[in-house]
């Protein structure tokens, strides 16, 4: 009996030692609920979900709303939102807005004293390249050859090809921002696969040509504005971006391309798909997806597209002092953004202009302290209420907003045409009529129409019309006023009264972290 037990024990021991091989297989673990690239791109129904991520790279910050599983690390997730960093870089260093927060990097933007470590500079740079890398992957995975190989139906292939052109548009848009903000940057396309390598540097001039050629190539491949679902890029979006590129060509590559600008602005205007909204304030309200004026929006939703960046930031950061958040359809006043005096002075006719939406109760016009919200007029331009005064979809929580950000809208196309025309690229009287169309909308009648205009009038009109829409820095640079001592605003150069800036500040620095990792890059001069 004892020997039986002994053999039993021995056998069990041998079994235990023998269990080794089955364990070895356990070392090959795969995520149970993740999808590898082959599975994602093997099903034609999945492509629109990847495309949705490419678009939502402009609005959302990660896989969860409002925050969680962020795309970009090393910066607060809400801060990393595309529209929010773009706003900070395009507006805070200008005459239009000041932000009173102590978050690292904000005061430096107010005071034009940023360094290559500025967290918003880094945030913008890495957000741009995040978009580009994701677009590259999608373009690579939706090449004609790959679609053929996967044996999709012709209708699926056609659909996916359009998505691919939209991905190219989104990539061109981000490269345009890289070109405008950083100038000379790393260059990666769908030819570069993911992995450890050092991308080549591309100069601002070369990048101009690349963005131009991409946009021209996809212009006719994108859907017509009438055929494209709201939220996706149409051929008009590509044309608009080309117009913007040409308008600033002198800054970007030293060439005069105002005629091209006029041509493309005209194409957008003549597409007939867009019309000025009757009511200016409604362009920035919760139901602005109904506006006929928006050419390319960044879409938000209080329930299904929640973020601390984007228009939620634009609404809440603009509220403070004696304002009641509920009046603007939100529950928070973050007390950050106010208008600077010189910008307020752009409205000589004050309250007659529908675009004069300042909140002045308890606010002073002058700013001596950056952090006091009561200094500087508040500007609740973005409101999370519907045009009929109703509540937005966030009724339940009041935390996040429905307002879409009008990245491109018809009024800007009008103003671009007018400016290009005045600079000799088109029909100046047509341009004047476009500007007057905006003024008539603003005043409700033609009393305040211009009889004739100068370039300065155009710059001021752009400010009145497009303020806080992330175009100001580019405009001031084009007009030579961004660094000049001829035009000062509070805290320009860090001084309360303002002072001239060094010209190197027209370009942002490349983040030190990327210069270290990629020796192909050269820091912009002055940093």
């Amino acid at each position, binding site marked *: 009996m004892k020997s039986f037990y002994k053999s039993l024990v021995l056998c069990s021991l041998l079994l235990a030692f023998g269990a080794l091989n089955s364990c070895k297989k356990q070392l090959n673990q795969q995520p149970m609920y993740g999808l590898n690239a082959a599975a994602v791109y093997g099903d034609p129904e999945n492509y629109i979900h990847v495309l949705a991520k490419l678009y939502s790279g402009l609005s*959302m910050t990660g*896989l969860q709303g409002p925050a969680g599983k962020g795309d970009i690390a090393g910066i607060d997730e809400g801060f990393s939102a595309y529209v929010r960093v773009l706003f900070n870089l395009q507006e805070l260093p200008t005459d239009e807005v000041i932000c009173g927060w102590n978050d690292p990097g904000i005061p430096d933007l107010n005071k034009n004293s940023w360094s290559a*470590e500025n967290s918003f500079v880094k945030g913008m740079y890495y957000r741009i390249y995040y978009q580009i890398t994701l677009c590259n992957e999608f373009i690579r995975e939706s090449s004609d050859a790959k679609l053929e190989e996967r044996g999709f139906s012709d209708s699926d292939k056609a659909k996916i090809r359009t998505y691919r052109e939209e991905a190219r548009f989104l990539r061109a848009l981000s490269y345009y921002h890289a070109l405008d903000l950083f100038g000379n940057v790393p260059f990666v396309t769908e030819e570069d696969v*993911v992995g450890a390598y050092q991308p080549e540097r591309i100069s601002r001039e070369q990048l101009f040509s690349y963005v131009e050629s991409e946009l021209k190539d996809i212009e006719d491949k994108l859907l017509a504005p009438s055929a494209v679902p709201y939220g996706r890029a149409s051929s008009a979006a590509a044309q608009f971006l080309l117009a913007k590129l040409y308008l600033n060509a002198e800054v970007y590559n030293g060439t005069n391309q105002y005629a091209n600008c006029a041509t493309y602005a005209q194409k957008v205007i003549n597409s007939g798909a867009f019309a000025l909204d009757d009511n200016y304030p409604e362009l920035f309200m919760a139901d602005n997806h109904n506006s006929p004026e928006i050419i390319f929006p960044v879409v938000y939703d209080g329930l299904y597209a929640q973020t601390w960046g984007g228009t939620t930031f634009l609404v809440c950061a603009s509220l403070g002092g004696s304002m009641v958040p509920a009046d603007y359809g939100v529950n928070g006043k973050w007390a950050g953004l106010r208008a600077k005096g010189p910008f307020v002075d752009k409205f000589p006719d004050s309250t007659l202009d529908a675009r004069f939406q300042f909140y002045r109760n308890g606010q002073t016009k002058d700013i001596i302290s950056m952090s006091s919200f009561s200094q500087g007029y508040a500007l609740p331009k973005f409101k999370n209420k519907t045009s009929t005064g109703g509540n937005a979809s966030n009724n339940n929580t009041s935390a996040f907003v429905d307002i879409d950000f009008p990245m491109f809208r018809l009024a800007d196309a009008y103003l671009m045409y007018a400016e290009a025309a005045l600079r000799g690229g088109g029909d100046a009287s047509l341009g004047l009529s476009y500007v007057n169309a905006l003024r008539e909308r603003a005043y409700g009648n033609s009393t305040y129409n211009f009889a004739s205009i100068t370039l300065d009038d155009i710059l001021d009109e752009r400010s009145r019309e497009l303020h806080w829409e992330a175009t100001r820095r580019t405009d001031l640079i084009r007009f030579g006023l961004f660094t000049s001592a001829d035009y000062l605003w509070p805290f320009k150069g860090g001084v309360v009264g303002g002072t001239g800036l060094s010209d190197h500040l027209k370009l942002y620095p490349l983040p030190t972290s990327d210069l270290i990792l990629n020796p192909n890059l050269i820091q912009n001069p002055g940093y």
Partner: protein
Amino acid sequence: MKNVKINLILWSLALNCICFGFSFSQGATISGTISDSLGKPIFRANVVLEGKSRGATTDETGKYSITMVEPGNYTLIFKATEFQSKKQEVSITAGQNIKIDMVLSAVNRQLDEVVIIGYGTTRTSDLTGAATVVNEKNFNQGSVSTPEQLIMGKVAGVKINTNDGAPGSGSTIRLRGGTSINASNDPLIVIDGVPLDNGGIAGAANPLSLINPNDIASFVILKDASATAIYGSRGANGVILITTKKGNGLNDELKVVLDTKQSLSTIAKYADVLSGDEFRQLVAQNGTQEMIDLLGNANTDWQREVFRNAFVTDNNLSLTGGIKGLPYRLSVGNRIENGILKRDQFNRTSASLNLTPSFLDKHLMLEINFRYVQSRSFFANRGALGAAFFDPTQNVYNDSLTEFGGYQEWLFDNGTPNTLAPKNPLALLNQREDISNVNRYIGNAKVTYKLPFFPQLKAVVNVGTDRSSGKGNITVPAASASGFYTQGSYSTYNQSKENRLVEAYLNFNNGEKNSKHLIDLTAGYSYQDWDTYRPSDTTSTYNESQDSIIYEPSSLFPFYTKNALLSYYGRGIYTFDNKYVINATLRRDGSSRFSPDTRWGLFPSFSVAYIISNENFLKESELINMLKLRAGYGVTGQQDGIGDYSYISNYYEGATTAQYAFGGQFYTVFRPDGFDANLKWETTKSYNIGLDIGLRNDRFSGSIDIYRKETSDLLAVVPVAAGTNFTNQILTNVGSMRNEGIEVSGNFGVIAKKDLRLDVTANATFNRNTVLKLSQISDPNATGIFVGGIAGGIGNTVQLHQINYPTFSYFLYEQIYDVNNNPIESGALIDPNNPSLGTYKDTDAFVDRNNDGVINVDDRYIFEKAAPDWFIGMALNLTYKNWFFGMSMRGELGGYIYNNLHSNSGTFQAINGTQGFLNNISSLYYNEEFQNTTDRQLLSDHYLEKADFMRLDYINLGYKFGKLKFTGDKIGLNASLTVSNVMVITKYSGQDPEVNGGIDNNFYPRPRVYSLNLTFDF
């Protein structure tokens, strides 16, 4: 004295013989007292009749008794831990009552004690690595809720800091400094051979809080790689082996111990903030009308509103004994710990069963451990820890307010809660229910089989599992200010974890027959896997009435992650002539966290020891009884604390709240995650030289160790070149770092008399940590990795990992001070009496290190670090007759702390008042009367303070009553009183200098605890 005893024994033997004839029909009784050479009774010594499963255990007074002994000739074996066993022949006649007293002499503890090492045991003399044993008698006293607190401050090289004062709160354990940046720095903890999952479980404050400290018999801490390399990829941060109490009775005797501890926790120190009157006066004097309008009339001490004195009760019952040769120990315990933050409660019930039967003439030994713990917690809202800074001029309740439970709250003009304003701290506590229930089962069965034909060879199979599941729910009523906008909220959480272990090894030991050459060989393998699961339906947040969803991250998939580790290992120990010991180990680990190309790692170690005291010239030494020199080298790895699938490219679906709409239709998003296909182990090479010494028969004993650990292929999250990956920062193997230090420890038997003993133990450790490399491309201009986020602004950090500096070095602006040694505030008037002189600029307040006229990140400098250079521990135990007294102290020197309460809550601006509410501020405001909190000022080194401290962890006084007369000598009693966290000596200006990570902000205060402990044994 000795002679008297021997005579006594002889007499009793003689008596034996006389009595024989009269009572042969009855069983005999053998009884007596066992004592040590000083005459002190030995508790829990065993007396066994050789060859029979009969025996007895001594009580507190050293008495034993074996009844119903059949007449015959026997050999009695007297055994006690830490004493040399003795045998005594005895022949017994029926009905005889024989009395045998025995004196046992202490073993040469440092040489002959058996110590548990990874996968087996060894004699202390054969240890070649740095290992420290802490037994029950050296455990910390007082109200101890988690096991690691038992050895806090006791072991050189081991720094244990409780994270805070919350009930069941965990500790941070660092052995010889941390070796990693983004992977884990926690040591591997092994309980009875089962390596634990160190990750947290939803609903428990800390995974170790699910082990009852009362069940623990001893700790062995393996510190250097020659000791930990047998754990290979998990040994880099040291290994803590925990052995639980086992049954030791072989007879039917039952030993019952009831331990009850009643404690009162009180707050040790409040944060120093302004009183209502001081606050009113300050605001009235310096504030705007807007601020003055917000002032109230009350004098509320908000800290006293949210904190309380709290009772802690801890009861444990253990039954130890044997049934028909089956030794067992069964214990049940319950601890109800109320936190000093109102409503905070941790209620742990544990049961553990150990069975250690043996069969086949002890050739087959079985060890079964089963442990079950349930913890039920009520987590008080930690938001209330900020109570100190709620406006002290406001009343707790607002009589005119019917909403929000009647609590005073900051409201917008339309009567809705101000979202940016702090909420009433008491309302936060009373209007949030966070209840959790966690169950954990740890079980293992270990079979040891000595091969019948070859008894030197043992086969060991150990199978174990550790499962835990936690669930809970959080409710915020709609009627509260914090729940107002969502109509309250209700959410649940649910998580389960499981790890499985199978290991088998063979051990050959040639025994002590050939004492010149001792050979011990071990070879085996182990497999362990871990998985974590969260069902998909528990991630949504509903409103209080649960009729609408507020937050729905993703309900499509549950969460599931799994990883596995397969290892082969071998070890050889060769001892020559009890003088020279050579130890070599080798382990090969494969981890599922890496690709098949980088998956396998090889971890060798080699160490030697020279026992000088066994040389002839020292053998007879009266002074030196032990002298041993050790040296070792080994390689260990690290892969804990990183994601399970970081090397695989994968797409994940986004949540329903992060969709994008095309034409009004919402689409979820698919996103590829960044990955590094070449990810591999972090590897630590370590060197150790040590000396152990024992003097005057161990009246003094001590050790010195010098070590160096170099970690390469450091796992860190670093930026990737823009455009090359689906993220901008990735976990990859980039750098290297070094830890080096010295450990010294000593035990002094200052007084060792029969009635009076005084033992002092002390240890000190010096550790220095240096980052050697941080990126694939070394560049002196690289700024390093920013860490150490603070309150104040979003994204401000005060610490940096930088090459040539310790990890968590402070990276701040250098404050400039005026002639009166007051810090200068940028933006303040240079002369308040003469405003025309203007204001101070940034460059007046901070040193412009690069002289470019601008203060920005380039002007920050590295100054000091969070970790201390020295940490020391000291304990004292005094016994006088039946009295005993103990105290334990712990200190740290050379660490620095950033006082975030001072920087963020110590300016006038911190009062706010521009957004419709006021905050109280720190009294430290009066130190410099800064007006504004700016991003520059927050990063001033003015707020960096020395964190040196010496803490008196506890004082303990007790009395051993022995067997109580009125219970018929049946029940014994020990009683003691303990005060824990008695005092802290420090110059730090904040509440507590002992803050893990070095940033002090809204800390759950460590309570001072008064405990009464009664231990009854039956």
